[in-house]
């Protein structure tokens, strides 16, 4: 009972603190804006721990966070092997191949409005389909090891990147294109100096969507057959053994890997598309934007 009451009290205190913080003038500082969600996250963990321990929830239904942390620490080498198999070999390889293929396709069909009008509706349609369903077919074709997972990821990331890149290549406005024409820039010069940079915000939008799809594809493909290593394999076998602390540890690894991957892409995006309005303002109010400087 003391666990339940304690965690409830902690929750109430943290929530009151958050309300105070949110209403206070401290919110102008970056640290406070980060502190509020962090406090909320910690509260969830404490509440989880307290309720599971206090109510005596069996660990085969929901293990407490401390047990998950122990599983994380105790099986570090196993988790690392799974991570390398699924994320580095399956997801990253497939992501690189799929995204570059989609980008190349978009540049290739760029010169043909006919192909664009034909491919875009189909690409948009494919992006909405449950593509994970092709996982069993590709596992049959490419075997149980990582190439089949990479193949699933290739197909999953292809269409979002394609659709976004084609939309991006149309983003440069007519005035800028006319300027390129008056400078007698050729097709490739205009593409390289104007239209590809102008397409980058769209391309990165596609790349960010694809980054989350990649890990999902690699994990789900392992549910259809895999060697005895890999995050999806570990999740399905440990669920079968009811070792849920290990499953949660694997999910924690997947969550950290997924957010880190997304964060990395977002970081590159910020360096590449620093000129875009959506990226302005993050540089702090003190600095002037490039257009105003001069």
């Amino acid at each position, binding site marked *: 009972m003391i666990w339940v009451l304690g965690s409830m009290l902690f929750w109430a205190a943290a929530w009151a603190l*958050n*309300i105070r*913080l*949110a*209403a206070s003038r401290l*919110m102008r500082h970056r640290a406070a804006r980060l502190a*509020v*969600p962090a*406090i*909320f*996250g910690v509260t969830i963990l404490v509440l989880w721990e307290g309720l599971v321990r206090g109510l005596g929830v069996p660990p*085969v*239904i*929901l293990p407490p966070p401390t047990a998950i942390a122990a599983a994380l620490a105790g099986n570090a080498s196993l988790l690392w092997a799974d991570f390398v198999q699924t994320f580095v070999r399956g997801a990253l390889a497939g992501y690189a191949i799929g995204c570059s293929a989609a980008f190349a396709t978009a540049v290739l069909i760029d010169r043909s409005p*006919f*192909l*664009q*009008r*034909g*491919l875009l*509706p*189909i690409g948009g*349609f494919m992006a*909405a*389909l*449950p593509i*994970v*369903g092709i*996982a*069993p*077919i590709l*596992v*049959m*074709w490419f075997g149980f090891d990582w190439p089949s997972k990479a193949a699933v990821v290739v197909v999953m990331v292809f269409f979002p990147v394609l659709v976004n890149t084609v939309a991006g290549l149309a983003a440069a406005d007519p005035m800028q294109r006319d300027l390129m024409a008056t400078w007698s820039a050729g097709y490739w010069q205009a593409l390289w100096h104007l239209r590809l940079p102008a397409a980058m915000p769209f391309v990165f939008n596609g790349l960010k969507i694809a*980054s*989350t799809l990649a*890990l*999902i594809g690699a*994990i*789900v493909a392992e*549910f*259809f*057959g895999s060697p005895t290593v890999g*995050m*999806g394999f570990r*999740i*399905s076998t440990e*669920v*079968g053994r*009811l070792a*849920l602390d290990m*499953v*949660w540890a694997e*999910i924690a690894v*997947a*969550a950290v890997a*997924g*957010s880190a991957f*997304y*964060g990395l892409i977002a970081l590159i995006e910020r360096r590449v598309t620093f000129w875009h309005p959506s990226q302005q303002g993050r540089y702090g109010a003190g600095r002037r934007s490039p257009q105003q400087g001069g």
Partner: protein
Amino acid sequence: MRNLRPVLTVLGVIFVLWYAAAVWLNAPWVRDQAGRAGQAVSLAEIVPATMAQERPVLPAPHQVAAEMWKGFTGQPVTSKRSLVYHGWVTLSATLLGFGIGAGMGILLAIGIVHNRAMDLSVMPWAIASQTIPILAIAPMIIVVLNSLGVTGLLPKAIISAYLSFFPVVVGMVKGLRSPDAMQLDLLRTYGAGPGQTLWKLRLPASVPYLFASLKVAVAASLVGAIVGELPTGAVAGLGARLLSGSYYGQTVQIWAALFTAALLAAALVGLIGGAERLTLRRMGLWR
């Protein structure tokens, strides 16, 4: 309609490529069989043989179409072999989950817009959760709920709900915030309370955002239902058809289930798109 001809051309090219790939991928098996029987096969014999295999590496489009037709009409819809039956199992979990997820998402978005502490605490997590491969927890949810005695539709619907929840939250928060300061000030001068502002300004303004996120959510919800069917040991549903097909090497069955799922996704997204057009036209927002 301007796009009809290019789309049909591209589809035609895909069909031709598909047939070519089917011949190319299935030919080794035909040659192998003929080699074992000690016969020589000519190309004219190989091509039809690649289209009529029991378990081809890549079934030809007409084989998939025939299997789907058989699945839809070959037996009563309650039969275990009927694709209508399996499709319905998946669809009902999808719709239940989508309803729960979208409803909760809208409620949470309203809470976030009205409570600054909630906005600051929950919103970063809602956005961060989009980057996490949530589908990985599907097997665990199924097994845990099974051990609690909850079986059937609900565990799959919970996964669907979870997947459709976050797109709706993020989209609705954006939508409920879309009225500009001028409009909000106007309502304040009318003496409108928060409830009236919500009902008369924020909710109508959020409708375009709502439909955009509902389309994403329903597609995600279908994926959730299909993946949710995998760990239950292939009992019923399109995901179970995929899994049992992959166990027994029934490639035609896998492709038929895959295309049924695609049809279902297209129908669901199309339905929401239609509702969007009707609603926005009546609201005068459709361009």
